[in-house]
């Protein structure tokens, strides 16, 4: 049986079979994977899924996987955490965190997209896999390529956080640092992919790669007991993730796995790079590119590839978009850590900071079920907290010194 999916132009709807291209050869608009849901329907049900391993491969029928592929890496199925502490802060009793800060293997949601993209990279016979990255994607490509025995060569803006660079190099991947911002790196990669036969996960493999993001949506629905939330707050860089969560919910409704519901999608950006949220706030779907200036470097994409589609999804769902300034991002990182024990990177700070505003504005109501997508791990961006905590003086390893210390601290606290 042929695979039940193929590439389709998002604008002219032309069908392109399966091949490593990201845009329509007729009209140059982006391609996305379309499924024959009639063929998929009835191939699996909730009980069948429940029996499968707790990884993103449990939704294999809804992913563009080759007939033969290595689906053994336990990626995805991250915790959906009921957030009582942060919920109290927002006066909400039904707040959840989708915690991809602990996604396997490289601690961000990018492991999902890469897992799917690399099955196709192998299928198409690429020996070198690559990407343009703000850090997390490079980590995910490097880690998974190492395991699959593929060569990885990734392109990053030169000013990335040191942790994200080491977290790529350790897997033996080649890093090419570009003296420019992400958008410039991205353009260069489009030109390289045009000339060299490399598997760029987010360029020529992009339609397949992007489908991996849908698993965030499937997992949210399943972990809520096969029901959809009222709201989801999603960080936006290129804008793909938010559109794919929406697509996932629609597929589940179409397949009868969840009841029909209008889920509101809310997008979060850093104020210093907010082309999509600016468009939503202005009531537009056309995107004016920006020059990024934010500590949330994983979201610093001024020319978002899926910006138009993200803005359309948000407004079409009845949602909204908000942005967080650099100080608000740091405050939100600490708020999440102190209330929920989850340390997220700056992108998570953007999401929590935006949620804070959305609750404040009454756009998200406390009685509604809301999920915040935490997409990355705080250990990768510790520099964002530099200077936030005082370095304490060490004390001698003697009980008397500890007692003295305790007394001093108690006095301090009493003040």
């Amino acid at each position: 049986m042929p695979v039940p999916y193929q590439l389709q132009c998002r604008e002219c709807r032309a069908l392109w079979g399966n091949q490593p291209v990201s845009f329509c050869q007729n009209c140059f608009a982006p391609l996305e994977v379309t499924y024959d849901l009639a063929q998929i329907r009835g191939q699996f049900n909730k009980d069948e899924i429940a029996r499968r391993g707790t990884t993103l491969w449990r939704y294999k029928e809804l992913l563009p996987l080759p007939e033969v592929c290595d689906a053994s890496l336990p990626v995805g199925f991250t915790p959906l955490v009921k957030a009582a502490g942060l919920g109290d802060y927002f006066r909400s009793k039904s707040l959840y965190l989708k915690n991809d800060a602990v996604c396997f293997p490289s601690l961000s949601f990018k492991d999902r997209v890469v897992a799917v993209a690399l099955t196709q990279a192998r299928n198409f016979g690429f020996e070198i896999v690559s990407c343009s990255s703000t850090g997390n994607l490079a980590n995910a490509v490097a880690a998974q390529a190492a395991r699959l025995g593929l060569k990885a060569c990734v392109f990053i803006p030169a000013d990335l956080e040191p942790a994200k660079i080491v977290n790529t190099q350790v897997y033996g991947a080649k890093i090419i640092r570009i003296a420019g911002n992400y958008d410039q790196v991205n353009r260069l990669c489009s030109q390289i992919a045009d000339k060299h036969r490399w598997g760029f996960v987010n360029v020529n493999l992009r339609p397949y790669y992007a489908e991996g993001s849908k698993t965030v949506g499937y997992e949210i629905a399943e972990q809520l007991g096969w029901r959809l939330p009222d709201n989801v707050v999603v960080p936006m860089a290129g804008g793909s993730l938010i559109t794919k969560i929406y697509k996932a919910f629609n597929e589940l409704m179409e397949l009868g796995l969840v009841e029909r519901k209008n889920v509101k999608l809310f997008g979060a950006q850093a104020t210093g790079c907010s082309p999509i949220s600016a468009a939503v706030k202005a009531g537009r779907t056309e995107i004016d590119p920006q020059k990024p200036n934010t500590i949330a470097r994983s979201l610093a994409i001024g020319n978002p590839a899926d910006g138009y589609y993200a803005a359309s999804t948000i407004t079409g769902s009845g949602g909204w978009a908000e942005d967080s300034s650099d100080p608000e991002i740091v405050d939100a990182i600490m708020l999440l850590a102190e209330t929920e024990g989850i340390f997220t990177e700056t992108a998570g700070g953007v999401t929590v900071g935006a949620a804070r505003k959305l609750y404040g504005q009454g756009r998200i109501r406390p009685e509604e079920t809301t999920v915040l997508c935490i997409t990355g791990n705080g250990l990768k961006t510790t520099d964002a907290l530099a200077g936030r905590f005082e370095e304490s003086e060490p004390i001698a390893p003697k009980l008397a010194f500890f007692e003295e210390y305790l007394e001093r601290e108690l006095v301090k606290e009493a003040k």
Partner: protein
Amino acid sequence: MNVTVHIPTAFRRHTGGVEKFECSATNLNDVVDTLGTRFPELKPHLRDQDGKIRRYLNIYVNDEDIRFLGANHLFSEGDEITLVPSIAGGK
């Protein structure tokens, strides 16, 4: 005054394989019109029904996205104009 226009592989099926060409276009509208006149097969893919340049067509002047320079930006002698289809993205 001449500028060089670079055409990506995907577009070349509409340009008879031409990879780059020189022209005397002076600004964005001019270069898009020149492309459409010179390569009639490419023309419908450059602008939408309202005559606006299609949103997934990215145009760079040297290394800068033309949207930062403004639609009325005047080209200079020797400028390299690069077309890039539906650019990739991140999160």
